């Protein structure tokens, strides 16, 4: 084997930006081509929106704002699911089966790995929210201003961050086989009790209090706030709760990461 000519390297050696971009691109492609991830991630929210946001909303006497409500909450639901599956199931699998070790032993900057997964989650989130918007505006007769649409997109896509952190924590504690089950068990009830399916105003009082401590409720509220359907709580409260939740998850993930370091494989 010949030693490669020096011209193949950039003058500054490897380019960090290039690594981050390639890592993100291939992480996205990896899941995009994986029907077990891509299909439920994209089709479930779409299907739910068609059922609840379009068909049920057409019943006589239904609240005319149902289509708008579900655009905001199912968008949040979709982003949460995309993040938990990409990070939780992804990291647990790659960690548990030894692939992450190969990556860690390489000169890959560790942050490139995690950033790529966040970008993947956000990209899937963006795709789904765009689909939901298309359905809402095109078929549901929902009217939003351009500014509202763009703000909603930004809120939903950035809303992936705390749930990526949660996925990371799950990924560092769950095994490769148990992670999908754990995420499936968690995300549906979490979304439901956070009012992403039914407004918490219709909940029994005790459950309304429970919703306040559930992070998806706060993302849902921020999204609803954009289209004028929020509970009126200030955005910084929602952001503070989501930020604190993300920080807690990152601390947990770090504990799991440390625990991994001491583990003996084989």
């Amino acid at each position: 084997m010949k030693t490669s000519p020096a011209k193949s390297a950039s003058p500054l050696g490897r380019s960090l930006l290039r690594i981050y971009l390639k890592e993100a691109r291939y992480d996205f492609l990896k899941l995009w081509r994986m029907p077990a991830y891509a299909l439920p991630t994209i089709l479930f929210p779409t299907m739910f929106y068609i059922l609840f946001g379009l068909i049920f909303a057409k019943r006589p006497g239904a609240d005319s704002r149902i289509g708008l409500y579900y655009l905001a909450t199912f968008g949040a639901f979709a982003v949460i699911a995309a993040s938990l599956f990409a990070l939780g199931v992804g990291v647990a699998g790659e960690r548990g089966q030894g692939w992450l070790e190969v990556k860690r032993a390489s000169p890959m900057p560790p942050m490139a790995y995690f950033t790529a997964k966040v970008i993947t989650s956000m990209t899937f989130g963006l795709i789904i929210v765009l689909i939901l918007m298309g359905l809402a505006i095109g078929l549901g007769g929902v009217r939003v201003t351009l500014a509202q649409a763009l703000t909603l997109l930004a809120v939903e896509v950035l809303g992936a961050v705390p749930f990526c952190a949660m996925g990371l924590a799950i990924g560092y504690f769950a095994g490769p086989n148990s992670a999908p089950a754990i995420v499936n068990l968690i995300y549906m009830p979490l979304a439901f009790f956070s009012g992403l399916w039914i407004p918490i105003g219709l909940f029994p009082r005790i459950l309304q209090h429970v919703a306040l401590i559930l992070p998806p409720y706060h993302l849902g509220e921020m999204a609803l706030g954009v289209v004028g359907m929020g509970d009126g709580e200030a955005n910084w409260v929602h952001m503070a709760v989501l930020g604190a939740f993300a920080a807690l998850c990152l601390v947990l993930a770090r504990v799991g990461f440390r625990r991994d370091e001491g583990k003996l494989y084989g």
Partner: protein
Amino acid sequence: MIVLPEATREEPTGRSGRLTTATPTPVARLDAVTKTYGPVTALREVRLTVPAGGVLALLGPNGAGKTTAVKLLLGLAQPTKGRVSVFGADPRSAASRTRTGVMLQTGGVPPTLRVREHLDLFSSYYPNPLPVGECVAAAGLEGLEKRKFGELSGGQKQRLLFALALCGNPDLLFLDEPTTGLDVEARRVFWDQIKRLVRHGKTILLTTHYMEEADALADRIVVLNQGSIIAEDTPAQIKTRASGRRIRCVTRLATEELRKLSGALEVIRPCQDAQPGAVEIRAVDAEAVLRQLLALDPQLAEIEITKPRLEEAFLTLTRADDDSRNI
């Protein structure tokens, strides 16, 4: 280890550090490393030096500490005591990782990415990667560039993992049981690839279960058992260490009597369902022992004398070590 004459050992500056210029600079070393996992001691005061160039094979039974040693050298685990260095630096540093390539036994390789994509990504981590085409050729993956990892056969998957170790054009390669699961033909091809890397000045640290593989490839063999190095030498020397030949025969003599034979190094009774009286005796001068045997037992039967292969030498070494620990 070259012992320098007294005169040259004297450094005018008094800096003994200069001495390293007289011997090849090691590319990697474990310096009195102890690694414990909870109550389990995986490595005990291990001193291992990987010299530049050539193949160093790490042998040992399961649980001997091979994987731990490799993980420490890769910076994937931290030593409980002692120091680990690769290219004179912390193995976790970018400086040593960009000069190191790794092939580990692993699952979870993203199955939906193509061969070319895997190589494109891993190459981007290194400052001076091999052109992807060259790497594909070196690992024998021609024509499979567009194949997804999940569509590759077992042997092709191994070749991709090997290609990932190569793609950064590293100076040091860690190959952890690289030919596990390969058929004989594929293993030979792989050996040729490793030999070619050595000709290009690479240093290779190989762990393997196949003694034949270590014998064929390694310049030095380090035998680990129960967390300690019990032998470190060339394959030929290792074979001589557990030296002599094996006499297999069927005799009515008792084990105690056989042990008293002059020149018998070891007496082994094969497992119980073997023929009654079957025995194996290891001796340097097999003929002399055989003469004594025949004198004591004229009915001695089924005599067979064999030279040890490396595998047997290795078993002898680890067994002797285990015995001495159990006393």
